[in-house]
């Protein structure tokens, strides 16, 4: 019975200590705040917008001109 209790305690301790989760503290977010980490950085945003409006035959709403022919 004692072994069982010890095992239970060890399992509880392990569940608390052996997690792979890490909290990124507010003062450690310098890399995440870098403009290159943004989903809408100028170059990447323009390219993904071009692909999107070409594929969907739709444009506008994000300041991008042109039609949906995929040729521009």
């Amino acid at each position: 019975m004692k072994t069982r209790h010890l095992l239970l305690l060890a399992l509880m301790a392990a569940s608390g200590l052996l997690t792979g989760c890490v909290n990124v503290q507010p003062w450690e977010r310098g890399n995440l705040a870098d403009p290159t980490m943004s989903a809408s950085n100028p170059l990447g945003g323009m390219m993904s917008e071009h692909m999107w409006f070409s594929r969907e035959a739709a444009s506008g709403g994000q300041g991008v001109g042109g039609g949906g022919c995929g040729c521009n």
Partner: protein
Amino acid sequence: MNTSYNKTKIKLIATASALFLGAFLAVAAPLKVGDAFPDLTQSGLEGTVPDIHGRVVLVDFFASWCHPCQESFPVMQELYQKYADKGLVIIAINLDKNKADMDDFLKSHPATFVILRDASNKLVSQVKIPTMPSSFLLDRDGKVHAFHRGFKGDETRKQYTEEIEALLK
């Protein structure tokens, strides 16, 4: 037999849970209003820590990558110029990983108040700020009089002014 086993089990689970909760709270507890602010001279800060004994102090945590921090600097500079003679000390503590980033920031956001650097993150880990920027206004006894989470432009500026004036009276 069965009841005794159940009681022991409940006791064990309760003890383990209390231990976990205690450990969590001990690690995660941020500084509250009324708490004594940690001794800046014992926090491994880079730069010259001024004598703040008996002074009203605004301690601000900032980084170059934090946009509201950029907005807060001109306001802090204005407050410093207005209230330094009356006993206000402003200490901005930088949390950039690279010192060069801080230097660039200070070139574009000049300040005459005290700038220190918590490169080891020792102090910030102690006070556990929830967001960037965060600032603590300390009374003349070195206790936290007010805590500011973030910088919200004129709203924060107004709060700073009211609180500083009340403490400097």
